[in-house]
């Protein structure tokens, strides 16, 4: 199994990562090695095995829809990298 550079680029785009050329090469090699290793899972016949998504078999808990936190907009926007009053500033979305 060999991961091509353009596949690495595609995955990086899906993951919203910009990679340098060196990183693209390094990750292609790393993913190759790691995927070759995890290939051992194919030794196991799992056709009739149910997947485990979560170990706890708790049912979805319900609670009353009540406001329990005091609104504190200032605290929430205080950590924003760019703001305008109590709004988050972002680059233009529609070109």
């Amino acid at each position, binding site marked *: 199994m060999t991961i091509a550079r353009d596949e690495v680029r595609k995955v990086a785009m899906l*993951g*919203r990562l910009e990679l340098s050329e060196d990183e693209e090469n390094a990750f292609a090699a790393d*993913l190759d*090695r790691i995927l070759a290793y995890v290939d051992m*899972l194919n030794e196991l016949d799992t056709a009739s095995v149910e997947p485990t998504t979560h170990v706890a078999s*708790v049912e979805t808990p319900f609670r009353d829809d009540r406001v329990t936190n005091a609104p504190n907009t200032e605290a929430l926007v205080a*950590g924003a990298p760019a703001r305008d009053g109590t709004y988050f500033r*972002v*680059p233009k979305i529609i070109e």
Partner: protein
Amino acid sequence: MPTDLTRLTITEAARCLSRRDISSVELTNAVLQRLEAIEPRVHAYLTPCPERAREEAEAADRRLAEGTNVGPLTGIPLAIKDNIATRNLRTTAAARILENFVPPYDATVTARLREAGAVIVGKTNLDEFAMGSSTENSAFVVTRNPRALDRVPGGSSGGSASAVAARECLAALGSDTGGSIRLPAAFCGVVGMKPTYGRVSRYGLIAFASSLDQIGPLGSSVTDCALLLREIAGHDPRDSTSVPLPVPDYVAELGKGVEGMRIGLPREYFVEGMQPEVEESVRAALCTLEGAGATIEEVSLPHTRYGIAAYYLIATAEASSNLARYDGVRYGHRTATRSGLLDMYRRTRREGFGTEVKRRIMLGTYALSAGYYDAYYLKAQKVRTLIRRDFEQAFKRCDVMATPVAPTTAFRIGEKIHDPLQMYLTDVFTTCISLAGLPALSIPCGIDEAGLPIGLQIVGRPYDESGALRCAHAYEQLTDWHRRLPEVPDE
């Protein structure tokens, strides 16, 4: 009154505090002095907070003087791993992207420690977003193992384990996804426990892999870990995966001993290539426990060798999804380059994430992407079922299981950092237990030729932290490893 307050266990310190033999300010100052003396060599902390700690100690002393609201942690100096939210105290997850993040809220575990009157000394180092086995992946500093400064402390809770081992706090909180409490506890020669998945609230824990992450205690004794666990465990409506089960008094149950306890020894956990001293120490520990009245049962966990592969697919898939939130909009770093929205996301994440985090986002995104989902992610989840069943079967024949924590003792700084697969294989004895969601702890059980600690892992049935703690406590009463380990001198 003891001469070196930093050597007190929580239980001893609480007794001294309640008798007013010492004050929390004195105890906290002793810890802060030790911290100041050795931090330049150890680097266990990312953000120590001495001023706040002294204020909290004064508040604790007032509580102690009034005799109101006094609990077992009142006035006790503790450390918290820096991926656990602390209100108004910088919380970075050792990531560039969160370098200046100050949470407007406390994690549930933090709130519980505060209610109990604990003094928070600071936030400890970790591998970025808890992704790593050596703490070398921190974006800020490399933590050194206080037992041997050229060695890694293990990861990802390496800062918490180092801080406990170096007496820069009495105990600490860590988090464990695939071994991140147990491995550093073993490498640094302290006790560390990952509770059953769902036992401790994850609210306020910066998410790595949500179906695996658990917060747990690290301390210098089993009793201290039991005490800390008792304070942080229990149902929390703010974490939908936290279980609504009553929390036993873990401390009270410690004294029950191991008479008649069946300890399973899974044969797959003794593999070729292991450091011989590790196997010898673990087997010797079992003899000690047998002498205390336990019986040893050989058991089998046939899918053990698939654990790392399944774990690294599931954990990275969940991580790639969890880390999607770091987009440079609401908090954290944003690139300074002016660009459109998509470029802003990509450049922000390029600048904000380190190599290992990017590698895992890549692997996880790949495993979840169209055309590969069934082959990798779904396959790994099915193997996870097989691994769970192994434990269910084996636990029919035993009450707890005992294994090594890692195949070797602490490796050298830099030794594995350029070989991700070798680094992942460090977790060979811890990941299956995480995939099965079981409680497990690490306790010192030996010292190798280089003077490095060896860890014994004791695994319990689901929600039976008590069984594992009781077994570890019985062992600890019969041994003195923690007193024989080398220490970093003050000067």
